[in-house]
């Protein structure tokens, strides 16, 4: 049973919180259900047909009793609802300084890209004690990244980015699997989640073969795919400038404002006609079927890196 450690151990503070919640809830379940089982057994014996017992004045309704056994368990579960929802809400609030790792799922493998450009397949290395945020895309069907030791999973849905963040705090090797049924080899789509001390993680990053950081790879694509022809500094076409775009509100044609987040940038590349920035002509072509999900993620990383005050972007 020692092998179960990769599945069931608590690799983060969040995992320990979920286990505490589960334990407390289990106690409440026992408290609510055991009386039913005991009373049924007692009644079946005591009031067995033909057996002598005091059956005087059986009641066939009692509204206050019925209301109380509807309301009291409900109020108890509401306490747990608040507790569980608070823990869940934390999952939607990643720290700003989290290490951003990209995930691309496809039938039947997991691909990871670290910010420095290090890539791995079916293994994810992360430093202990530091928040990590995964931005995930699928190339085909719905998958779900599940790391039981973190008590976390998140579906990876084609056509959109989903994300998941965590702070793993116990170095070790844990399981990483696909939880959403994704076709023939679903059950073998998995690997290892490796939590390392920060120093070991740095060493691991240094050993990995790297061509370019994500943003630099995106910058190359930006030129090669012709994006710079319209969005570059010397362009003659009237296209939205991308410097400092990330995180800013963008007014849309026909009213409405969206925040330029990862999803917006992705949609603008792949589905340019769906949300058009106010005041610009409808001339952006789609890059669907041209760019892979990994390339789109690299472009998003590049555009994110174009901060105000560095008009040329991160020319490395």
């Amino acid at each position, binding site marked *: 049973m020692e092998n179960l450690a990769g599945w069931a151990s608590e690799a983060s503070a969040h995992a320990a919180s979920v286990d505490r919640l589960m334990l407390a809830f289990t106690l409440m379940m026992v408290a609510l259900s055991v009386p039913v089982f005991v009373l049924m057994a007692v009644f079946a014996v005591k009031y067995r047909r033909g057996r002598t017992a005091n*059956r005087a004045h059986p009641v066939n309704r009692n509204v206050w009793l019925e209301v109380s056994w509807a309301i009291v368990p409900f109020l108890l579960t509401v306490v747990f609802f608040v507790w569980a929802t608070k823990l869940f809400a934390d999952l939607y609030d990643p720290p700003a300084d989290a290490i951003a790792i990209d995930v691309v799922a496809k039938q039947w493998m997991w691909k990871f890209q670290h910010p420095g450009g290090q890539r791995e397949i079916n293994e994810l290395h992360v430093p202990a004690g530091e928040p990590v945020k995964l931005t995930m895309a699928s190339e085909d069907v719905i998958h779900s990244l599940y790391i039981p030791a973190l008590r976390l999973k998140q579906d990876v849905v084609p056509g959109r980015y989903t994300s998941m963040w965590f702070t793993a705090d116990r170095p070790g090797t844990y399981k990483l699997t696909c939880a959403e*049924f994704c076709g023939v080899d679903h059950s073998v789509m998995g690997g290892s989640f490796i939590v390392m001390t920060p120093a070991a993680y740095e060493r691991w990053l240094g050993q990995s073969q790297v061509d370019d950081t994500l943003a630099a790879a995106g910058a190359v694509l930006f030129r090669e795919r012709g994006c710079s022809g319209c969005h570059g500094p010397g362009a003659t076409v009237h296209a939205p400038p991308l410097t400092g775009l990330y995180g800013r509100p963008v007014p849309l044609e026909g009213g409405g404002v969206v925040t330029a987040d990862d999803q917006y940038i992705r949609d603008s590349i792949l589905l340019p006609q769906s949300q058009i920035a106010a005041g610009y002509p409808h001339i952006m072509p789609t890059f669907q079927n041209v760019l892979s999900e990994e390339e789109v993620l690299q472009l998003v990383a590049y555009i994110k890196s174009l901060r105000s005050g560095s008009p040329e972007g991160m020319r490395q």
Partner: protein
Amino acid sequence: MTMDNALERRPNPDDLNDRGLSETQDERVSYLRAGHTLRSWLLTTDHKRIAILYLISVTLFFFIGGAAAALVRADLLTPQADLLTNEGYNRAFTLHGVIMVWFFLIPSIPNTFGNFLIPLMIGARDLAFPRLNLLSWYIYMLGGLFTVFVLIAGGVDTGWTFYTPLSSMFSNGHVVMVAVAVFVVGFSSILTGLNFIVTVHKLRAPGMSWGRLRLFVWAHYATSLILVLATPVLSVTLALVAAERLFGLGIFDPKLGGDPLLFQHLFWFYSHPAVYIMVLPALGVVSELVAASARKPVFGYRFIAGSSIAIAIIGFLVWGHHMFVAGQSMYASAVFSFLSLAVAVPSGIKVYNWTATLYKGHIELDPPFFFAASFIGLFVVGGLTGLVLAMLAVDVHLHDTYFVVAHFHYIMVGGTVSAYFGALHFWWPKMSGRIYPRIWGRLAAIFIFLGFNLTFFPQFILGYLGMPRRYHVYDPSFQVLHVLSSAGASILGVAYLMPFTYLFWSMRYGAPAGPNPWDVRGLEWTVPSPPPKHNFEEIPVVTGPPYDYPLEREGDQGEAGDAAEGNAAEGNAGSRA
């Protein structure tokens, strides 16, 4: 005359020359003998005969689905892929799910026992639309034949949930054919639901007010509302999947401009209420079994009846709890989580009220009581673990693991199938006219309960440890729990076969049941067993509440009907002394 008297005597169970041909006077005029040709069965419009047609066909599909489950459990004895290929395994569990959900669980109780009993319980001669009732069976069989065809043609590997874009663009199986089968069988559900609603509204006997309806009828009324309102959504959704697969219309596949989550919203908008289609009739059955076992008015009739309707309504508002990690908004998840807790309240009311019904009852430990008690035990575990899954942070961990598999099998199999067998054991003497050996009924109930728990309890642990569902190849550290589960499944399989031996035996060698073998109240127990073709010689006039069992009051001196109750009342007087 003497001849008739001779036939009215009990057939001698030891007389092996008695080939079951001897029959009582009641049997001679019963619906079972009203025509002996195949045609008289296949073209019948008698609700009781249609119920028997459903009983046979639904049970057949239960065993086909069970064979697929046996294949899955046999394969999971080892962590490697040995018995089946990965694709073969996926096809086996898909077939298991599709057949069990649409061809067994949904029609199981309503179309057999609902069909047989609703007219008898409300004092009617048939359902409102007898021909529609027969049509509904033919549509069911047509859908079933499509499914059997798919089975022979090689199957489908999407899971019973048909998640897009896997089902619409990637799967190699016969997705469209299965979608057609489920689409077709949906019309059977809709027609049955309509028939029940109209029947309950229009055909109640004089004096049978809404407040005097049996709880079984209330539960079926609530179920029918869901059948009529939810099934069309599934039909539309499956038609859209077929359209995307056949014609490349972009509805769910993002590469064509569609949205895969739209499918999940539509699918669960049907399929979560469908869970209540499967379990509400079972709750109705158990209300009957508990009241009959206790021989006492149901505690809190109004709350139990109202809770069926409440479950039907709130059940439409919780579908998003299947999508907590699918990428829906955090706020939507919080609302769906809260509503999922709310739907547990009416279920809790039922369980506590059943327990209170047993208090001061006259409980006979007959097979129906054993099935009812095991239903309550398993339903409570299934319901409470459903609350675990409604807790957002916990569901993030447990979603799509074996914990979910265990949870819904406790509800569907521990709950609905136990109630199905409970109903079969309770109303069998009414349907067949003969009594089966009670000891065998008790043993079957006990073996089903034990086999069930051994099969599915280990799966809660597997799930919490992180074992995902629909996994053919799994980590060897999970093997012990999987072997336990497969061992339990083999006990369960044998236990499910047991009733078929002694029930068939009883048809030939069982003693005639008489109109009321359990000594309980209810209109169906006032007519002969098996009932005559038109149920009631004269339409009854109802003058009292349901479950009007005599109650002991202080000062009563054993006025209750039979000797046992008399003894109890005397004992009661004694204990006061």
